[in-house]
C-alpha cells in the first residue's frame, strides 16, 4: 500500500508549501484563482500551429517556478495522470498531418530536416498540457484549499458545493489517516506477507469505510459543537493594491502575447 503513503506524502508536501511564508502565498486567493483560469484559457485558445507565441507563454510558469521557489520536478511529476490521454490524442498528428511547414538546417541547395504541421500541432498540444498543469500547480502550491474555497464563495459558488469541497478535503485527511493506520497495523502483525493479502481486501476496505464514517461523524459533531452552522467562516482577507496589480499585469501580458505579439512571430 505504498501508494497511499506516496499520495499522503505528496499532499503533505503541498500543505507545507501552502504554509510557507512567501509573498505569492499572501496574494489574495481570488486574484490567483482567476489568473490561473485566464492563463489556461488563453493558452488553450492558441491555434494548433501557433508554436512561437505559445513558447512565449512559458514566461508565466517560468516566473512562478523560479520566483515562487517551486520545484520543477514536482510540477512535472504531476503530469503523469493526464499525460496518457494527451499523448494518445497528440501522437498521431504527425502521421495524419504531413504537410511540411519548414525545414530545420540545410543551406543552399541542401534541404534540412522537414518539420510538418503534424509535428508542430503535436508539440503545441503537449505544451498546452504542460502549461496548464504547471500553472495549476503554482496556484495550489501557494493557495490552500480553504483559501480557494473562500475565493469560490466570493464568486457566488453555492454554499452547498463549497462546503462539500471543504469536507471532502478534510475527510480525505481523516480517511487517509485511517487507511494508513489500518495498513501499518496489518504490516506489523503480518510481517512475512508482501503487501496485503487479496483475501483481506474486502474486509479491510469495508472496515475502513465504516470506521471513516464513524470518525467523520465525530469530526462533524465536533464542528457543530464549536458553532459550525453550515458555512465555514473564513478569515477575511484584506485586499491590498498588489492583490489587484499582480494578476492584472499578467493578464495584460497574456493578452498582448495573444493578440499583438502573435502577428510578429
Amino acid at each position, binding site marked *: 500500500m505504498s501508494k*497511499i503513503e506516496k499520495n499522503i506524502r505528496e499532499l503533505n508536501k503541498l500543505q507545507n508549501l501552502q504554509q510557507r511564508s512567501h509573498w505569492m502565498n499572501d496574494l489574495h486567493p481570488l486574484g490567483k484563482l482567476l489568473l*490561473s*483560469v485566464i492563463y*489556461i484559457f488563453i*493558452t*488553450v*485558445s492558441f491555434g*494548433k500551429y501557433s*508554436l*512561437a*507565441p505559445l*513558447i*512565449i507563454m512559458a514566461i508565466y510558469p*517560468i*516566473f512562478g517556478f*523560479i*520566483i515562487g521557489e517551486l520545484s520543477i520536478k514536482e510540477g512535472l511529476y*504531476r*503530469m503523469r*495522470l493526464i499525460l*496518457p*490521454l*494527451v499523448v494518445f*490524442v497528440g501522437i*498521431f*498528428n504527425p*502521421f*495524419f498531418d*504531413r504537410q*511540411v*511547414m*519548414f*525545414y530545420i538546417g540545410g543551406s543552399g541547395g541542401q534541404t534540412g530536416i*522537414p518539420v*510538418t504541421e503534424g509535428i*508542430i500541432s503535436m508539440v503545441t498540444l503537449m505544451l498546452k*498540457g504542460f502549461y*496548464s*498543469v504547471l500553472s495549476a*500547480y503554482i496556484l495550489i502550491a501557494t493557495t490552500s*484549499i480553504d483559501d480557494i474555497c473562500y475565493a469560490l464563495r466570493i464568486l457566488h459558488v453555492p454554499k*452547498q458545493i463549497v462546503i*462539500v*469541497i471543504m*469536507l471532502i*478535503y*478534510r*475527510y480525505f485527511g481523516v*480517511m487517509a489517516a485511517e*487507511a494508513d493506520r489500518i495498513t501499518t497495523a496489518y504490516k506489523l502483525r503480518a510481517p512475512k506477507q508482501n*503487501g496485503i493479502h487479496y483475501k*483481506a*481486501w*474486502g474486509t479491510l*476496505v469495508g472496515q475502513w469505510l465504516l470506521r*471513516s464514517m464513524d470518525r467523520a*461523524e465525530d469530526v*462533524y459533531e465536533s464542528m457543530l459543537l464549536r458553532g459550525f452552522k*453550515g458555512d465555514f467562516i473564513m478569515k477575511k482577507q484584506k485586499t491590498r493594491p498588489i492583490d489587484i496589480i499582480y494578476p492584472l499585469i499578467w493578464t495584460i501580458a497574456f493578452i498582448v502575447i495573444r493578440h499583438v505579439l502573435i502577428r510578429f*512571430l
Partner: protein
Amino acid sequence: MHMADALVAPAVAGTMYVLSTGAATVSVKKVREENDPKKIPVMGVMGAFVFATQMLNFTIPGTGSSGHLCGGMMLSAMLGPYAGFLTMIGVLLVQCLLFADGGLLALGCNIWNMAFYGCFIGALLIWRPMMKKGASRVKIIAASIIGCVLTLQMGAFSVTLETLISGITELPFSVFVATMQPIHLAIGFVEGLITAAVLVFVYEARPELLWGIGESETVARKEAKLSLKNTIVVIAVLAALAGGIVSLFASAFPDGLEWSMEQVAGTAELEAEGGAYAVAEGIQEATSLLPDYAFKNSESAIGTSFSGIVGALVVVAILVGACYAFRFFKSKKSGVTAA
C-alpha cells in the same frame, strides 16, 4: 477518462461549463429543498471515499492511469442524484487541484462526462426503477454493473466528441471511437464490480444509508441485519473476482493505454495506408518525396514560423536569466540585511 485542459478548445470548455452549471443549479435547489443536515457529513465522507479509492492499490491495475473509479453511480446510490452530483463536483475539483487529474478549464467537461451521466442517468433511469420494489443483493449488483458500464460508455463518447470538436487532434472519428469505447467497456465493468461490492456492503451493514430503496424494505432490513461476516464474505468474493478479472486483463494487455495505442496504430495502418510508419521512416520518406513541392513555399515558412520560434526561445531564455538574477539579487540583499 479525465479530460485535460490541453484537449479542449475554449468554446467547448465554455459550453460544457454552462451545461454543468445548469445541472448544478438544479441540484443545489433540490438539495436545499430536502434540507437534511445529516446528509452533509455523509456527502463529505462519500466524496472523500471516492477520492481516496482512486489512489488505493485495489483500484484496477492494468487499465491505464486514468482508468480509475469515477464514482458517480456509487455516490448517487447512497446520496441520491442531486447530492451525488454536487459531491462529484467536489471530488473532481479537489482532484484537479491536488493531483492535477483533469484541469481547471476542462472541469466543466469532466463534470458532465463523469458526474452527469453517472448521477442522473445512472441513478434516475437505472437505480431507482430497479430498486423501486425493494432491494436485494442481486439487484444491487446488476444495477451497479449495468449503470457503470452504460454511463461510462456515454462519458467516453462525450470525451471523444469534445476532443474532436476542439480540433486539436487529427485522429479520425472512427478510430477514436473504436478505441475509447471498448477500453471503457472493461473499465466500466470493473467499476461496476467495485461499486456493487461497496453498495452490497452498505446494504448489509447500514441499509438506511442507501437511496431510493422502498421504505418498508429499509425498515425490515434494519431489524434483521445480516452478520457482518456474511457481508465480508460477499465482498471478499467480489474483490477477488474483480482482482481475478483484472489480472487476466492485465496479463493479456500489460497496460490499457499501450493496448489502445496498438489498437489505433493497427487500424490506422489499414485506413490511412501506412499512417503508422515509424517516425524515422516517415521523416526519410518526407525528405525524399516532398522536397520539390515543399521547397517552393518554404521560403516564407522559414521566414515566419522558424524565426518566430527561435525568437520566442530567445525571449524565454532571457526571462529565465532575469528571474534567476532577480532571485540571486534578492537573496543576497536579504542576506546583507540579516547580517
